[in-house]
């Protein structure tokens, strides 16, 4: 192979590889949009408007959607912060004291089976249905449990050989905590944080479904639905989904920066 042909072959190989990876989902995406757009009558047409209509509704209502998204985003992130802080606190305690762990871990596992979301109306009543805090607390509650479990696991699941190594250096518990357990825990923490972003949006949105000011995405969706403006309702959901993805992406970026060693091991 000549010196010229080799790079060209490699470029061609890379192109083929990218095409193989990205083309199918692209085809599916385009196909779905086109099919949706073209689908004619049927009772669903009203409630499931074509993508073009949704886009129009979004453009026509940009300001309102932007405000609503900001409000919901604020609730979700607020809840994320509260749930994460509380979760960290409890996780460190439960890693430190086995008795705390024996009580908290079963509760955390059970929490994954219980529809925690059902408590949304109570939270609305406690903190005021028009108060963003009620939605934040719903989000926080959902975020809390995975954070506790993941961080506890990260603090405890240290290679025994690492602990032996530290013992051979006569290192104290604080040293072990600082130099071994906490760094070990970071990937788990980010796992829980990413999971938490999705959960926090669900908490905020569903909390809003149970009641809230008219200026939040959940209410926008419900109200446009009840007034028959389905394109707007879908636009609201779309924007909400984008906001959730954006939050998730932001956390992923922070994770890559904070854990350069780990992300290269990840096959994510």
């Amino acid at each position, binding site marked *: 192979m000549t010196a010229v042909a080799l790079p060209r072959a490699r470029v061609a190989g890379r192109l083929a590889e990218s095409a193989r990876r990205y083309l199918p989902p692209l085809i599916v995406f385009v196909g779905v949009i086109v099919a949706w757009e073209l689908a004619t009558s049927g009772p669903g047409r009203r409630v499931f408007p074509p993508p073009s209509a949704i886009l129009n509704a979004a453009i026509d209502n940009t300001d309102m959607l932007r405000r609503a998204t900001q409000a919901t985003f604020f609730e979700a992130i607020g809840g994320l912060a509260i749930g994460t802080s509380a979760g960290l606190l409890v996780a460190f305690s439960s890693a430190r004291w086995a008795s705390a762990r024996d*009580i908290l871990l079963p509760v955390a596992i059970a929490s994954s*089976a*219980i529809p925690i979301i059902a408590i949304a109306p109570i939270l609305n009543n406690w903190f005021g249905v028009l108060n963003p805090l009620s939605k934040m607390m719903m989000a926080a509650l959902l975020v809390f449990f995975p954070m506790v479990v*993941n961080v506890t696991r990260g603090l405890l699941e240290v290679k025994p050989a690492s602990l032996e190594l530290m013992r051979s250096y006569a290192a104290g518990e604080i040293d072990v905590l600082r130099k071994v357990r906490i760094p070990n825990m970071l990937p788990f923490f980010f796992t829980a944080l990413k999971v938490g972003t999705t959960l926090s949006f669900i908490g905020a949105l569903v909390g809003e479904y149970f009641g809230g000011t008219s200026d939040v995405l959940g209410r926008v969706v419900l109200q446009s639905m009840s007034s028959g403006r389905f394109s707007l309702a879908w636009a609201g959901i779309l924007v909400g989904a984008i906001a959730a993805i954006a939050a998730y992406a932001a956390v992923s970026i922070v994770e890559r920066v904070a854990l350069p060693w780990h992300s290269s091991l990840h096959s994510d």
Partner: protein
Amino acid sequence: MEDEPGRSQALEEQQVAASTGVATTEAAASSAVKSRGWSRRVRRVSGFVVALLLGAVVWEAAKWLAGDPWRIQSIGYFHNPPFRILQLSDRHLPHLWDITAAFGQPFQRNAAYSLGSYLIDQALYTWGVALVGFVAGASIGIALASIFVHSGFLERGFVPYVVASQTVPIVAVAPLIVTGFGRGEQSIVIIATYLTFFPVTIAVLRGLRSPDPRAIELMRSYAASRWAVYRKVRLPASLPYLFTALKIAAAASIVGTIIGEGPGGGLRGLGRAILNFNQQYITGPERLWATIVVASGVGLLFFLAVRLAEIMVLRRRGTREEGA
């Protein structure tokens, strides 16, 4: 590193669960405490019981310190708490015995039967709907995963969306589904199906892929057909993964059903009961709490049922135990 596959798997499971509105922690929790079978289970259950009791004590203790004045006529106990926090008032946090008592009282003025039986009715309805969606979603998920494992193109085309959907609050679509397909069971079943098939598809796909490539090579050396490989190697290997996803899906389908029935606009079920009792909060907050207790019970029981099935099916295999 031995740890890595387990770790990224747990992450995926949690993300999948998150997108369906379930705060799953089971996969992660199972490895946080390592010890042997039965003693671990006993510890878990007793830990849970202790936690409940502790919770009850904290509940009433908080009300004793900062709730509304206590006036228990039957034993002549009166107490004025030194502080006052609004959220601990009798309206916002009823006494546990009031909630318990509410089960026996009529669920509505002049109603023929008690709250307890009303809620059980609604619970069975909710669970029934969720179950239908659960079974449908699991079947679709298994079918899709089986197709994907055999067709690279379809997999590359669709799986990115399945994966991406894990970051999206799917559950938010519930009201639109209900409006679109009518306020009856069919819409809610659709929601539950939808929420179930995501985790199942991903988990089963991974499970079908999980066997040691050398086992597949062995089968090929016997000139086994792809169907035989699927039946004898891939499918059995996927069972543990399937059950992990089913546990997530159980909770997710309940959550989806309740939301569909509630704000979604369904006509019956626990979700509707929650909305109704929420509107009637002033006249009887205990009923809303009672409904939440029942909803939690349904979720827990469904989860335990799947867990039991898991234990029975996987028992003989000597696979590594997970969870409670």
